[in-house]
């Protein structure tokens, strides 16, 4: 069963990437979609007594889940099977790592995400992913 990884940061292009992956999954048979939200790691200056690992993990999970809601809503509307994942780390590296560990077959993502400057050619995350992965990467405006 071919798996499409859609990194999702809540941006418009990311939502279009979700729609595109859903369209492809509908056209094909047996496609599975994984939507992945990568949370930027929290600054490490908090004393460990105030913020411990568990709190951080819970924070990432809830923030990630909130962001993924828009993608999940759309995928449910289209009616394609999917699963949601949240990770914390540097976006580009984490996406490429996830793709490798979970053995997905392709990646579909927005050309630019939340972090990018409007005039930028390609967002830094998309660039990093294209650079780090050997998988086909579909970029959606």
């Amino acid at each position: 069963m071919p798996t499409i990884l859609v990194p999702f940061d809540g941006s418009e292009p990311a939502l279009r990437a979700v729609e595109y992956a859903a369209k492809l999954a509908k056209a094909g048979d047996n496609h599975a979609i994984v939507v992945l939200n990568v949370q930027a790691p929290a600054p490490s200056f908090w004393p460990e007594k105030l913020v411990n690992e568990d709190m951080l993990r819970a924070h990432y999970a809830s923030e990630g889940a909130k962001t993924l809601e828009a993608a999940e809503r759309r995928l449910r509307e289209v009616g394609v099977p999917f699963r949601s994942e949240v990770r914390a780390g540097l976006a580009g590296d984490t996406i490429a790592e996830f793709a490798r560990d979970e053995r997905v077959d392709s990646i579909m993502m927005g050309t630019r995400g939340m972090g990018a400057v409007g005039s930028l050619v390609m967002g830094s995350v998309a660039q990093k992913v294209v650079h780090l992965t050997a998988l086909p990467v579909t970029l959606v405006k």
Partner: protein
Amino acid sequence: MLKILIAADGSEGALAAARHVVRLAKECAAVDVCVTYVQEPILNIELMLMPAGDVFDRWTQKSGRVATAGACALLDDARVPHRVEITSGEPAPTIIELATSQGSDLIVMGARGLGAIKGLLLGSVSMKVTQLSLIPVTIVK
């Protein structure tokens, strides 16, 4: 029906693109594939020195057939029906124009073409296409 345009230039990347489309064709019930080659324009002065008016056009067709041969062979082997479109112009905008006029759902191309330096993340044509195209672009390595 998923309409796919492959941008081919005879490079390894173009073959990888064709292989990816073969996989897509297996996964999706209906695909419509067009293999394109865009010949870069030559200088006007060279055009003026040419003995007959259609030399450039014949040359374009010939180099196009050579450049698309590998990709077409891969599609033929996998019994994926496809058309070939050979034209001339500035590669990136012409690829996008072709895709737009054909109503393509997807452009598939190699990360780097014939002209690119090996260490480069993306070749200049792939870079420009991902930059300019409103149609999703799949970059294949």
